[in-house]
């Protein structure tokens, strides 16, 4: 198993409501991260499905993610758990993550935190590579989020 945790935040001039609208628009967010394909909304703010595909040279990981919202408080915070597996590669991915919107003197602090773990074959071959990749994906996501909420 390779696991990691993250905690990032940025500040925006937008209100918490505006941030909430953007950061729960799953179709929009899906475009921010290269590895996420189509997102299906099963029940808004409750359950989603998403396809994930990542490639590193000849290596490919494909998984259908099942995403369940575990906590939410409009427009202040939301937590979810996403999990899925790639049977071909024999690996399983789990992400527990949350977002918090904290109003701060007319601005909003957007906070993300969470943990991820990759188990199975992939984890026996490249723990550091996975962490490296996860960091890059998070950077990509956050910079897009910050950009969109500027």
């Amino acid at each position, binding site marked *: *198993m*390779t*696991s990691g945790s993250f905690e990032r935040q940025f500040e925006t001039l937008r209100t918490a409501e505006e941030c909430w609208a953007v950061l729960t628009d799953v179709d929009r967010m899906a475009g921010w991260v290269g590895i996420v394909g189509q997102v299906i909304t099963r029940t808004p703010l409750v359950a989603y499905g998403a396809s994930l595909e990542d490639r590193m040279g000849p290596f490919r990981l494909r998984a259908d993610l099942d995403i369940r919202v575990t906590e939410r408080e409009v427009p202040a915070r939301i937590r979810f758990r996403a999990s899925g597996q790639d*049977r071909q590669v*024999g690996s*399983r991915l789990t992400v527990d993550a949350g977002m918090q919107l904290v109003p701060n003197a007319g601005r909003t602090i957007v906070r993300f935190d969470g943990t991820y*773990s990759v*188990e*199975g074959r992939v*984890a*026996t071959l490249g*723990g550091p590579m996975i962490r490296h990749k996860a960091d890059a994906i998070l950077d990509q996501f956050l910079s897009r989020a910050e950009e969109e909420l500027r």
Partner: protein
Amino acid sequence: MSRIVGKPVARVDARAKVTGAAVYTVDVVRPGMVHAAIVRSERAHAFIRSIDTTEAAGSPDVIGVFTAEHLRHLDPYYGHIIRDHPVLAVDKVRFMGEPIAIVVASTRLTARAAAATVTVEYEDLEPVIGIDDAVRDGAPLVHESRYRRGTGVAWETVPDDHLGTNVAHEAHLEWGDVEAALGAADLTVRTTGTYPMLYAYAMEPYAAVAEYRGGQLHVVSSTQHPFMVRAELARIFQVPHSQVQVEAPYVGGGYGSKSWTKVEPLAAVAAHLTGRAVRIGLTVEEAMLTTRADSARVIVSTGLTSDGAIMARDFQVDFNTGAYADSSPSILDKAVHRCFGPYRIPNLRIHARLLYTNTVPASSYRGFGAPQGNLAGEYNLDHAAHKLGIDPGQLRRRNLAAKGDELLPKRRPLDADVAADLDLLLTSLQRDPPQVDAPYRYGIGFGCSASDAGAFPTSTAMVRIGPDGSVLVSSGAVEIGQGSATVLSQIVAEELGLPMDAVAIAQSSTIATPFERTTNGSRTTTLVGLAVLRAAQAALADLRRMAAEVWSCGIDLVVASDGALCGPDGRAAGYGDVVTSWFGIDGGEAIGIGIVRPEGETKAMPPFWEIGVAGVGLLVDGETGQVRVERLATVGDVGFAINPAAMEGQDLGAATQGLGAALAEQLEYDGGQLTNPNLVDYRVPRSTDMPSIIDTILAQRQDGVGPYGAKGGGEGSLNPIGGAVMSAIARATGVWPDDVELPMTPERVWRLMRGSPDGR
């Protein structure tokens, strides 16, 4: 004057092994044989909610898919000490990699493809991975229920009942007043030694072929213990031993890791449920998920006088034994006996715990509990010598037990001269020290160990002299590479006055050879050797009786000489002629049985003390932390080397495995997953890692109970290597840590030199 023993006679299995003709279990093909693949747990600790085998069952070539549900009519558990190990996981998985289902198909390729389609739903439980996880308050339980005793409870190991904890077994040994002695000591040195999780890496991965022949279960397996496996299979299927046959052809490495039962039940139930001959051949990755050696944390405090006399030693031993007990309760007991070394210790206290965790189950590995404790125990003495400013050889000599001293109460007194062994070692190790320039630094390290070895003295053997005078030896002992086929044949050839090529040996088949309890504990040469020696003598006595009848003379007048019998009046006949004359036709044989049991010279336990005296000289790169072992010396205190070349090969092999553990080998867990289940990331010693100066010394004082004064060897030279390497690194770098942990990878050496904690 011996003719054949004591000489480097060529191995009897060598020709088969250099031509590719030698048959191992992985080479066995049976008519109509099909292949099994195993579905393994993807979770470390979880309840099994459901298993969906539909797709697998409908896959091409698939004959059957089986889970624990299909084994309900059996008693599908094994474990020779604690019967805690289900053949296939029942309701719960306890480590990632645990077998959950078997898929049987006509080819291995299609069996594996179908196995990959089986889906299991789990309900995750918190996993217990390390020693501290297992013993903390409120730790999740790896096992919730009480288990029965196994079929092969070791003579001194009785499983405890630790319901409600993760402690599988505890052991305690104490004499004197340790607290008072430590309080009175001039110096007390405390060491925490962490010994890594190791994989024995026998190059032939576990394999078994099972089938029913005329209603009888027949299993061919890469096992060291065919008779013990038979007992466990008989219990699973609830049939008499006579209805189960187990045979071991050539075994591609064992080192203890093929002791007791491993994959045989999986093959056997597959054969039972399909009615076919079924082969299971694991990959190395799967073998690494089958068993490993116990990892350990050993804390030792030694109190000494200012001139280096040991006053007291206090050990706390914790073993991480993984998900199932296997032989580890017995290993723990031995670790208690073996951790404190061959020293006179007036006050001693040892407490040891065996802990279940959600990791690959641990079991026997060369040294059997000795290397784990020896690291802390011997490094601790070097550290004490350093603090006292005493030469480490001198400190040991001052405390070493003498031949005849009692190391353990009411056990066989020490049957070796360890001080003399140490002198031999140090003379070799200190010869011509190299001149080194920066950034390199040189240091030597060495250590001693004494193991109550030999396992249990239960051995039977048969020697048959045929109508042409040639001889067949039958022994249940397994040829695992240690050279048993050669050594046992040498003994018989010697006793019968025959050349080696007149003697053939049949081994390790419950149907073809007499009972042998185990092939472990360095016991084969000594105990099986004694059994075949007695069998040869009995066969010869039988032959003399025949000759006396043929020649109508008293048996006392018939003597054996140079492979023939001589009688009164110049009568002489070859062995074959005696047999055919007595039977009156061109047929028949003289038969001798040899038995060893706890009686006479093998009554006192242990049957012998296996001594380990070994050391290294190594270079440390002061900038990169890389270690290059420049020289290695071992002393094989074996009483008498029946085949010196084979014996030296055993010592060097054992020491080499010790170097692997000391410098590179380590199974690594990240959460519940073993992250390096392959030989790319689990690095064992290579040719390029070997020292350029190797001295395998044999000390032959004929002080053992075995044939011609032989004692067992082959494990001892591994035991001191870890501590020796650690002390050599400390001497080279000048840094003497209180906490030591193997393997000393370059990164660890680098951190040691810089006082830099792990940056991860």
